[in-house]
């Protein structure tokens, strides 16, 4: 009886382990099946490099270049904001902060990760958007910059907690060696700890970016969703994710528009896959 139980549980765990991989494959094939259909009517070059996104016009114009650039612009902005702050925060928590403050900060950051993105988006809409409009004297505050700032908040917990782990995993002897050579605390952090944890920190950054590029609700609420090629970060943009979320309900199943939205899904999938693989490579380099 016990043996049977053991056997059943082992198989169950094995199945759970395989299930996630299986689901990823299923999702990927489904995306391909639905998304590739759009290329029967729209050449892939026109789809990726087309400058106009008018999906419900007749004939529809399905060019996602403004959407790709919109997503990249918001992501780049969020990265520029969140990486220095996130890394500095991780260094402070791992190296400088006294025990009490450390615990306080850590739980604070975990709490930040727990805030639903729609709530952050809402807060951004009523507070951040009017500020951005006022400070930069813009016609509207619904801009890529507002999205970047809000998304930086969302990427921060990921970056801080993984970068902090990377800093902890630097062997103690490195630090002691540096101190023994007469280095100050700051010199030790800057010249010894950060370089030796660099691959882990890079992985943290990549995972943070992955979180940002896939984010939907908050960007949809505060970036204005204008499908125009952005000239600056102070203009409204429309991201890939927001386009799928806003238009999926309308798209008639089996129409060109519907397939195009799945094709956008493929593009997003490729982006986040590349980002995750890069992060994974950095993490493995760290382990060796």
């Amino acid at each position, binding site marked *: 009886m016990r043996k049977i139980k053991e056997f059943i549980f082992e198989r169950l765990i094995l199945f759970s382990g395989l299930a996630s991989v299986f689901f990823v494959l299923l999702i990927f094939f489904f995306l391909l099946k639905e998304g590739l259909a759009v290329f029967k009517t729209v050449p892939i070059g026109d789809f990726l490099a087309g400058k106009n*996104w008018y999906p419900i*016009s007749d004939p529809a114009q399905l060019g996602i270049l403004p959407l790709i650039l919109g997503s990249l612009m918001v992501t780049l902005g969020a990265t520029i904001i969140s990486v220095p702050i996130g890394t500095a925060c991780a260094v402070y928590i791992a190296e400088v902060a006294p025990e009490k403050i450390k615990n306080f900060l850590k739980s604070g950051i975990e709490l930040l990760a727990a805030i639903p993105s729609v709530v952050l988006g809402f807060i951004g809409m009523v507070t951040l958007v009017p500020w951005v409009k006022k400070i930069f004297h813009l*016609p509207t505050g619904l801009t890529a910059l507002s999205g970047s700032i809000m998304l930086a908040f969302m990427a921060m917990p990921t970056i801080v907690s993984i970068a902090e782990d990377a800093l902890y995993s630097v062997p103690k002897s490195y630090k002691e060696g540096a101190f023994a050579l007469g280095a100050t605390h700051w010199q030790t952090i800057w010249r010894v700890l950060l370089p030796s944890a660099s691959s882990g920190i890079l992985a943290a950054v990549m995972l943070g970016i992955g979180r940002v590029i896939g984010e939907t609700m908050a960007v949809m609420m505060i970036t204005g*969703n204008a499908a125009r090629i952005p000239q600056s970060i102070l203009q409204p943009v429309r991201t890939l994710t927001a386009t799928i979320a*806003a238009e999926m309900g309308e798209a*008639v199943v089996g*129409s060109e528009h519907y397939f195009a939205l799945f094709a956008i899904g493929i593009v997003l999938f490729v982006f986040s896959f590349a980002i995750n693989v890069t992060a994974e490579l950095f993490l493995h380099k760290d382990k060796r």
Partner: protein
Amino acid sequence: MERIAIFAVWFLVSCYAFAGPDKNSIQIKGSDTMVNLGQAWAEKYMEENSAEFIAVTGGGSGTGISSLISGTCDIAMCSRTIKRKEIDLAKNRGVSPDEIKVALDGLAVVVNLKNPIENLTVDQLAGIFTGRITNWEEVGGEDKKIVILSREVNSGTHVYFKEYVLQKNDSKNKDEFASSALLLSSSQAIADEVAGNPSAIGYYGMGYISPQQKAVHVALDSNAEYIAPTIENVVSGKYPISRPLFLYTNGQPQGLVKKFIDFTLSPEGQEIIRQTDFVPINK
């Protein structure tokens, strides 16, 4: 072991029972413009027929029609007529949409209270929303860049505005919303942005007009009279941007669906239309 088996059977049976068609309820879905109206109808109707249940949800006219086609709702609310493509698709799935005109709606064009603009012609509106006119000065306002607010493409209001104002109901006219137009996800979001942004212009159903925005008076051309979006002006046909609102059912309405639709067309149902700031069709 036996207990687990019994539980599994019970679970399956209950799933089936809940998933099965409920004879006493109607699902209504579609146009965000009509959600408040649908809710008001449903409440009144359920007061009188307490054994029946009506669920009303929004999402946009296109969402309503695609739910009707996929069979997840019984009545689709729609603030535009059904598209050729949608009819073809419905036929493929064995659904034959039946159209019932229930009300009229005036589309209000709104600006911020601080904006001195009072009147605009349909041509000027088309110019503004297609991006040919980019500064308020060009239509007699202050020297400020115009911020265009539109609904997302799943909105019947978006489609109607494009076809009747931008393209002037000419199917050869291929004018589009300017790509710089901000696409917001609800009429309320447009109302909020217009209330807070002195350079914004937006549009939505008359029901959303509030003292926080200024509804512009609209004229068909510069020789015509500028008309305010009020119920009287829509009924008399003087206001240039008004549209019919529809309910779509699968085939001729029958049973409970018919009972509900008859209710919406009854004097009582039409009175609710007036109360929710739309224009009744049966006077």
